[in-house]
């Protein structure tokens, strides 16, 4: 295949858009924690740009997208980008340079690791986080990316659909977040119901805005071409984000007042849910997908809070459950009229597709929880996952990074 300039331009722009989502996550999470932990929270995401940005070109891309080994993992042929060059790949995104596809996928790996951090902010040791993230990318992310998107991956062959990462990004991050939070344990004062007041809600909104903006690259870019399918995914994405934001706003209004924090959260829930579906469903399906996502995520967050689990920034409730709903919704609303490479869903008479989606969800839930738990446990017994009590009280900005977010002569 020859290189198509429009497709290449769109995929490179999309890669840059997805890159911007990671600082977006940093600000989204950073605004929600207490004043003394702003920088450590932001740093967890930003450090991933450095860490995974390296690991991906060294071996991550090869494990995920290298020539298939038994449907489970990619081979080592692309180690250090060997043979990944300016010519298109013969199997992935065949109208753009292989390097562009590799870069686009790398941004997904980065943001997925960054998403997990929301579970353990304000208490996880930074050194342990770096080690855990390296292990997690290698042993959890790369195999699952191969199963779902790799040529020859077993879920891909089975026909489980995941357009832009409902399984690979959101379920994986959300369920792993739950496992890691259960190992790290709650923040000091969480059980005593000490107020954990967000330090900067405008920063949360800025982060949510960058995420929403970047998500166009994430979802519409996943068309891997710049034509009609990208446009369809783009509109579906915006519609679901709008439906999610509006629905959460109403839910919080019914409860008491329409909050900024809730509306921003609803947008992210809608975006997470439309991710696997964006290029398989007609754009208007963004409405039911976004509305139901907000309702599910809202009540899962309530459930999580009532169970006394300190999965601090609700990665599971928003990304895990939003992603789960989205993957199942793909099995309900998908249509070959939108994307011939997809399938028909339940409402178009193909109940089997929903079963395939359900299988993908179940397998990845179990795999993500179990393997993350084991990896976390290994890091815990060897180097410890948590900072000590004094470091936690002082705050991780000073104890882990020797900086503080808000300077000034006093305070």
């Amino acid at each position, binding site marked *: 295949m020859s290189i198509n300039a429009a497709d290449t331009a769109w995929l490179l722009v999309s890669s840059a858009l997805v890159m911007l989502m990671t600082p977006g996550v940093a600000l989204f999470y950073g605004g929600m924690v207490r004043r003394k932990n702003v920088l450590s929270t932001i740093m967890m995401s930003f450090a991933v740009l450095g860490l995974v940005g390296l690991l991906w070109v060294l071996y991550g891309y090869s494990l995920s997208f290298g020539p298939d080994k038994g449907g489970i993992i990619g081979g080592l042929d692309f180690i250090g980008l060997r043979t990944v060059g300016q010519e298109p790949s013969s199997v992935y995104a065949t109208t753009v340079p292989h390097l562009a596809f590799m870069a686009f996928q790398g941004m997904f790996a980065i943001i997925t690791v960054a998403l997990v951090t929301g579970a353990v902010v304000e208490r996880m040791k930074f050194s342990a986080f770096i080690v855990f993230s390296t292990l997690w990318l290698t042993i959890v992310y790369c195999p699952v990316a191969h199963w779902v998107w790799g040529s020859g991956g077993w879920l891909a062959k089975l026909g489980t659909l995941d357009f832009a990462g409902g399984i690979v990004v959101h379920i994986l991050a959300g369920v792993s977040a739950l496992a890691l939070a259960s190992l790290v344990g709650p923040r000091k004062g969480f059980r005593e119901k000490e107020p*954990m007041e967000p330090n900067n809600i405008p920063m949360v909104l800025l982060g949510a805005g960058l995420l929403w903006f970047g998500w166009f690259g994430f979802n519409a870019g996943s068309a891997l071409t710049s034509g009609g399918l990208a446009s369809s995914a783009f509109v579906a994405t915006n519609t679901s984000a709008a439906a999610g934001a509006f629905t959460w706003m109403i839910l919080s209004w019914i409860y*008491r007042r329409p909050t900024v924090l809730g509306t921003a959260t609803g947008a992210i829930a809608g975006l997470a849910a439309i991710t696997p579906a964006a290029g398989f469903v007609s754009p208007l399906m963004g409405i039911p997908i976004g509305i139901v996502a907000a309702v599910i995520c809202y009540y899962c*967050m*309530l459930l999580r*809070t009532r169970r006394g689990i300190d999965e601090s920034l609700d990665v599971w409730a928003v990304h895990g459950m939003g992603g789960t709903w989205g993957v199942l919704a793909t099995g309900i609303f998908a249509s070959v009229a939108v994307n011939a490479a997809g399938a028909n869903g339940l409402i178009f008479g193909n109940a089997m597709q929903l079963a395939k989606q359900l299988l993908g969800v179940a397998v990845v839930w179990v795999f993500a929880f179990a393997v993350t738990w084991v990896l976390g446990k290994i890091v815990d017994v060897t180097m410890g996952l948590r900072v000590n009590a004094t470091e936690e009280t002082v705050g991780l900005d000073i104890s882990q990074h020797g900086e503080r977010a808000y300077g000034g002569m006093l305070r």
Partner: protein
Amino acid sequence: MKKIEAIIREEKLDAVRAALQNSGYYGITVSEVSGHGREGGLILQWRVGEYKVDFLPKLKVELVVLDEDVARTLNAITSAARTGEMGDGKIFVLPVENAVRVRTGEEGDNAI
């Protein structure tokens, strides 16, 4: 000389400042403080549900007045800062040993 420390509602600052000016005092120091009296804390909303903040934002107005002006000043602040609801604040009066005007070196009542 007496020092007057008044903890007031944030939204009452303009009214208090105007009342103090009308009673002849122009120099005040204002700071943002947090605390609670009998009214307790403040309920705010999280992404779902609520949480309680124990300390409410208030302003502390400080000024030093001549002994004979204390009653008049207290009256000015009280009537300007009052809403009648819980949380209107409190005023404390403290003795002051001396005062110095930095520019001229004047001391005592002359420095106020």
